């Protein structure tokens, strides 16, 4: 079965659970892996993203035409992170149970709040990333794949590819700059003229 977002919306509004499942399959992994970067606990990230889908189902009759499911779900997840986790009692419990770095966590929530989630089109993002990855110089791509998708440390990558850690860092700096330019539409604007000297 091949359904576009418009069909899915139509079916969802008519309580079609299959449509809901299709939306879930499509967006759950993306949102989960994204949120996990900001909330470094699997259980919490899972809960937050699942809550977004729960809300989507409960509000299915109120959805407007041309709803961008990705942006809608992402906005819910983002707000969930910001308002629920910022709750002091919740946070206390969180830090008591898990050893996470409060400063880093707070910094990351600030970053998350600066994202304009309303224009997020995950299909396009995926497309840009795939394209950009394929355009990187081969060695740079290799380093990136190991660092990002296999979660390897720079030291491990250096050993594996028989290069120095400095060179690994260089590749990552270079690659990330290319990615930031490619993804500029999805990154927050800065309030003043930002001169990049890298």
């Amino acid at each position: 079965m091949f359904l576009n977002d418009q069909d899915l919306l139509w079916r969802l509004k008519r309580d079609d659970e299959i449509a809901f499942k299709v939306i879930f399959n499509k967006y759950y992994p993306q949102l989960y892996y994204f949120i996990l970067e900001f909330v470094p606990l699997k259980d919490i990230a899972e809960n937050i993203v699942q809550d977004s889908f729960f809300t989507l189902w409960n509000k299915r009759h109120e959805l407007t035409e041309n709803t961008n499911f990705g942006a809608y779900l992402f906005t819910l997840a983002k707000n969930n992170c910001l308002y629920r986790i910022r709750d002091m009692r919740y946070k206390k419990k969180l830090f008591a149970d898990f050893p996470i770095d409060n400063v880093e966590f707070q910094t990351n929530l600030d970053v998350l709040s600066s994202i304009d989630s309303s224009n997020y089109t995950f299909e396009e993002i995926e497309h840009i990333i795939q394209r950009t990855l394929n355009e990187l110089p081969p060695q740079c791509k290799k380093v990136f794949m190991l660092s990002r998708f296999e979660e390897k440390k720079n030291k491990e990558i250096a050993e594996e590819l028989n290069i120095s850690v400095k060179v690994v860092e260089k590749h990552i700096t270079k690659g990330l700059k290319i990615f930031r330019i490619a993804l500029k539409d999805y990154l927050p604007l800065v309030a003043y003229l930002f001169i990049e000297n890298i």
Partner: protein
Amino acid sequence: MNNLDDILNLITNNLAPDQKEEVLSSIKEDLESENLYRKAKITWALMASTQKMPDYEIEKSYGNIHARISSQANQRSIFFKYFKYAAVVFAMVGMSATMFYMGRQNTGFTHALKYTSVVADKGQVSKVILPDSSVVWLNSGTTLSYNSSYSQNNRDLSLSGEAFLEVRKNTQLPLVVTSGKLMVKVLGTRFDVKAYPDDKEIKVLLESGKVELLHTSDKSFRYKIDPGQMASFDQQSNKMNICTTNVQVFSGWKKGELNFVDTPMSEVLKSLKRKFDVVFEVNSSKVYRSVFNANFKNESLKEILDYIQYTCQISYTIIPEKNGVKTKIILN
């Protein structure tokens, strides 16, 4: 900027805890660093979002959310539940009556022509060459009929089931495939029509060339699709839906493949039933809640069932064929 490497090392998780703290506090002090961190962090996270998640993990999470939704829905009235079933039965009666009526009408027009039917039994895919040299692949459980004047003064085909057609070009004599209320009119092209009697929708997928979609009784109904597009025609509502799709996935059956992309379990079972000529008994409505993604080439039925069991948490029991009674598979 001196701490660029530090910031990126922080994002890529390459700093020791004490270094981390230092870099984090430097970010707070310098706007430029903060901006860089922001952008790089989001970029890094966006890349993470493109990772593939194993099917069983998606299913597990869906299980959680499904449980929440159903515990909420159980509080609704029982009346609604029965009303829904009544509506389905009503719609089915209406549909078969229409089909019977049209069937009668057709015989009135065509009694002078003799018909040839080609059938692909369940469990079979067959390839047929028609009198005009067009080639047709028939999927399991499909019947294709044409009349004695085919390729002389008409190229009319009638289809029940699924067929992939490679139509010989003849601009004088368009080829028309009729399935239910839908007519597909072509001059020369490659396309797939899926119209099993137990399907609610008729699907037409175009691989190359051009096709026109018409209605048996509604003259104003006229659609065209381009290569790579699929038209879904809802037989009950007469609603037409056109979308872009993957041709390979749709017509893999010609090579004996089974391809499922976000396919509801009800459809998956129909395909398996046709391909392996077995009967399914579904003992839990939970079975129908699954959406299935997989590609099979030469896998046995058992291997496919094992995979479904694994990814969709559906257990199965096989009761082998006996005294001419088909193999039955019980799902829970």
